[in-house]
């Protein structure tokens, strides 16, 4: 099945108009069609993950590659090139898995323009697959931009009261970041001795020392802006709290669970692998920014009173771990950091996805997301309360959730790079602090008198719970995620001074 990866991209994309047309006629048929296509995509993603797990590609190589010439003009050659490795495989699985959760949650939380909504959902899924699978810089950029369009409408059409502002802010930040990134790519491309947009070709050139180090600095800066806006890092993060607070809960799941991963993926795949020397020289800057982002996210989350804002800031905090882990490997040469970063992206996606979805149910029932006003959820919404406590425990990095392992690996790698980075151990402490405080204030307190709320429906509760189960499994069988990422981690570790 050499066209497996194209199926992952194009099943959702081709499904977009179908779902729109079917959904306009019959609401349920549209939803079930979306769900069916997503499940198929998920199964294919799982199969491709298994393939990479069993046949791990060699260092700097990719599995299941497909290559077609798309555009050929003068010295511009553009290939549709897709491939899979230990970095993209978990993210592909994560994206398709979260898409299913989003569809399940949206049945109850989205109540208007449903045909358009589910069509855009599939469009989003297909584009995000394209981002993680393309190995050509321009095709990567095209999918990267395609992701923005559905997200703009998700926030703008189905969002909260300040949705117009949030949607515009989102698209202006990310579009500006990504056009600057594109400019960096073009500059890099034209400076190469034999220009190519294909990442494997560029990596081979780097290993043969054909690319001058001086060429790497500006593209690294440009890609830092592009990916830094998405991840996001301080100071490019200001769009995120607005987007998250205004977006409907299922879309927050996609934002935090999938969209932010694009930034982490970009840092690992492009900033580090394609600009290794410059990355090595400036690793300390990225480590510093990563650490600042972690602390900033945690401290602002501590001050947040809106439940969703708190979870959104937790995402910033956790994405800081990804940046820190990635560059800890670059700086120290220990593969632990990259492995931890990939593991962190996967576990964060599941835990935060579950939490955002729960916040949507809480908001729908209680009519508010203000933590001081939410009282006694353990009595009024017992199932939700249990899930919220479990999700919070996962986000805090409490064993037996695998998030603990991921954060541990990243912090350990950080220490091996610069021992001062040991201070980042305080971040999980702060995170635990605000989650425990939230649990105390909103869940364990006594409810207001006469407050009756409908609890989360059992099937939905089961669905959300099933997203926390892999986290418990993965702390024991962590090699399921880590093993495929080892070649990449060693590859990045080997880039140092190479």
């Amino acid at each position: 099945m050499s066209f497996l990866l194209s199926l992952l991209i194009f099943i959702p994309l081709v499904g977009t108009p179908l779902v729109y047309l079917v959904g306009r006629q019959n609401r349920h048929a549209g939803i079930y069609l979306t769900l069916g296509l997503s499940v198929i995509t998920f199964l294919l993603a799982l199969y491709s993950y298994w393939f990479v797990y069993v046949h791990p590609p060699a260092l700097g190589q990719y599995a299941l590659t497909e290559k077609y010439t798309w555009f050929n003009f003068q010295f511009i050659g553009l290939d549709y090139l897709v491939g899979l490795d230990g970095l993209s495989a978990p993210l592909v699985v994560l994206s398709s898995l979260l898409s299913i959760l989003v569809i399940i949650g949206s049945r109850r939380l989205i109540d208007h323009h449903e045909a358009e909504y589910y069509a855009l959902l599939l469009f989003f899924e297909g584009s995000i697959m394209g981002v993680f699978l393309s190995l050509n810089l321009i095709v990567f950029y095209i999918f990267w931009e395609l992701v923005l369009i559905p997200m703009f409408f998700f926030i703008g059409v189905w969002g909260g009261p300040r949705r117009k502002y949030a949607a515009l802010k989102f698209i202006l930040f990310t579009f500006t970041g990504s056009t600057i990134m594109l400019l960096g790519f073009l500059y890099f491309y034209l400076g190469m001795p034999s220009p190519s947009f294909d990442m494997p070709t560029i990596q081979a050139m780097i290993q043969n020392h054909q690319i001058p180090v001086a060429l790497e600095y500006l593209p690294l800066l440009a890609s830092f802006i592009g990916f830094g806006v998405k991840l996001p890092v301080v100071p490019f993060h200001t769009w995120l709290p607005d987007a998250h607070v205004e977006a409907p809960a299922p879309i927050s799941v996609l934002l935090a669970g999938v969209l932010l991963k694009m930034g982490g993926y970009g840092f690992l795949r492009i900033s580090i692998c394609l600009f290794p020397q410059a990355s090595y020289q400036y690793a300390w800057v990225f480590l510093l920014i990563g650490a600042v982002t972690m602390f900033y996210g945690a401290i602002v989350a501590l001050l947040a009173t809106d439940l969703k804002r708190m979870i959104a800031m937790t995402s910033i905090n956790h994405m800081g771990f990804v940046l820190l882990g990635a560059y800890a490997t670059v700086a120290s040469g220990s593969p632990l950091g990259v492995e931890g970063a990939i593991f962190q992206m996967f576990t964060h996606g599941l835990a935060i996805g579950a939490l955002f979805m729960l916040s949507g149910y809480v908001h729908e029932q209680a009519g508010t997301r203000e933590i001081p006003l939410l009282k006694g959820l353990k009595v009024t919404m017992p199932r939700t309360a249990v899930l919220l406590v479990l999700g919070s425990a996962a986000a805090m990095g409490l064993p037996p959730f695998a998030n603990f392992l991921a954060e541990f690996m990243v912090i350990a790698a950080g220490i091996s790079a610069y021992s001062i980075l040991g201070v980042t151990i305080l971040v999980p402490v702060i995170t635990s602090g605000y989650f425990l405080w939230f649990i105390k204030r909103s869940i364990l307190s006594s409810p207001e008198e006469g407050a009756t709320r409908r609890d989360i429906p059992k099937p939905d509760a089961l669905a959300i719970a099933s997203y926390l189960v892999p986290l418990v499994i993965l702390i024991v069988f962590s090699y399921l995620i880590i093993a495929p990422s080892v070649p990449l981690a060693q590859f990045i570790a080997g880039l140092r001074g190479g």
Partner: protein
Amino acid sequence: MNLLSVTIIILTASSLGTPLFQLLDDKKSKTPAYILIAVLSMSLVLVGANTIWPSTNASYGGLLGSDAIGGFFALATLGVTLMIVVASSSYIRGANSPIYYGLLSFTALGMLLLSYSQDLLMLFVSWELMSLPTYALAGYDKKRVQSNEASVKYAIIGAMSSAIILYAISLTYGLTGTTQIIPAVKALASQPFNPLASVAVILFIAGFGFKMAIVPFHMWIPDVYEGAPTTVSTLFAAATKNAGFVAAIRVILAFATVYVLTQNPLFTLANVIAVLAVLTMTLGNVAALTQKSMMRLLAYSSIAQAGYILVGFVAYAYSRQTNSLFAEATIGMTGSLFHILNNAIMKGVAFLAAALVLLELKRGDLQAYNGLGKRMPITAFTMTIAFLALAGVPPLSGFWSKLLLFLSVVNGPFAWLAVAGILNSAFSLGYYAWIIKRFYIDEPESAEKVNEPLAFIIVFAVAVGLIIGLGLFPQIVTNFAPSAVKNIFPG
């Protein structure tokens, strides 16, 4: 008799024939429109065939030359005119409609001849043939004050630019003794630096710059676009503007080795165009952001697009001047031609969509566009695609032309131009997204559905198909463009 001659003859016949319908009793008959649609479709086929299988035996005494670049512009301008005529068949209502179509036909003939002109005098004559009918067209709504104002303003500015061009032509003739473009420029290049030659270049830039809508010759644009009947504004923004570009490509770019003003390395043609490009795109985008009326917004965004197109001119002029970077020059000019074509489609359809909104809702302010996605779903979708393409969002056609344009200058002394262009693109999404937000996110003032006539829907469907199709298969244009680029300055 070759295909180009046939095209010229049938367009002349329709220009002279359609106004005769004014003599009939049924002055509101749509027959002139249908005749012009048939003639323009035939012309498109003929010109297309002539471009694919060029006829070598046509000489026209050196006045016209049927080369690839002429074919490209003839196809682009006639195609836009066809779009406009189809839309006009349900937009233009009034007793003078046969005259309207006759004037449109004359303009189309002028643009066709201009595309193929090889001689400065032929170029000037076709320039006038194209321009004179448009002055009358701008005032077609004779009972509206704004339309009259637009007409007068446009006529004065147009006459001035014609005079400037004519003076530049006379200088060129005086210096070289010929009005043939290529021999004249070759003769100039072999002479020592002559200040009069640079005066001629400056005058050419100013004269053509009015039509191309480049800063600082842009002041008339928003008023005229807003005042003229909207289908006529479409003609200005998407067709006669391209005619300005073909004149600039043929004449100004041929002067690439001539210094502007003084023999100072700062005053090369590439530098001058680069500065104009940045000014044009920046002013256009900044001004567009603050507009309250759709027509003025589109007018300023049209100015910004002219700035992007100039980027390829810079790459070409620099390459000619330094005798290096030939691949970049080809990429840049291909980007310019591609963007001219894209701009014709994207801007053309955006203007026509705005025309439909104006026709149905009788309003042109941005407020009227709130909730358009519910009221006029096809129009809103078309405009959304056109705006996304104008902002350069992949994989629509506008992305590829901008990619080629910026790629052509990013490696060399004009890298700052690529930075400026990319930042402008990002900035422009600000106002495009703002409008798209109005379509789909803001609540409409009234929920009633609005009729969308079939003629407009056909035009929208074709244009959206082209924007997406050229985005997925950009090779269609880029395979063809290099042969056109070779025509700019053979040898």
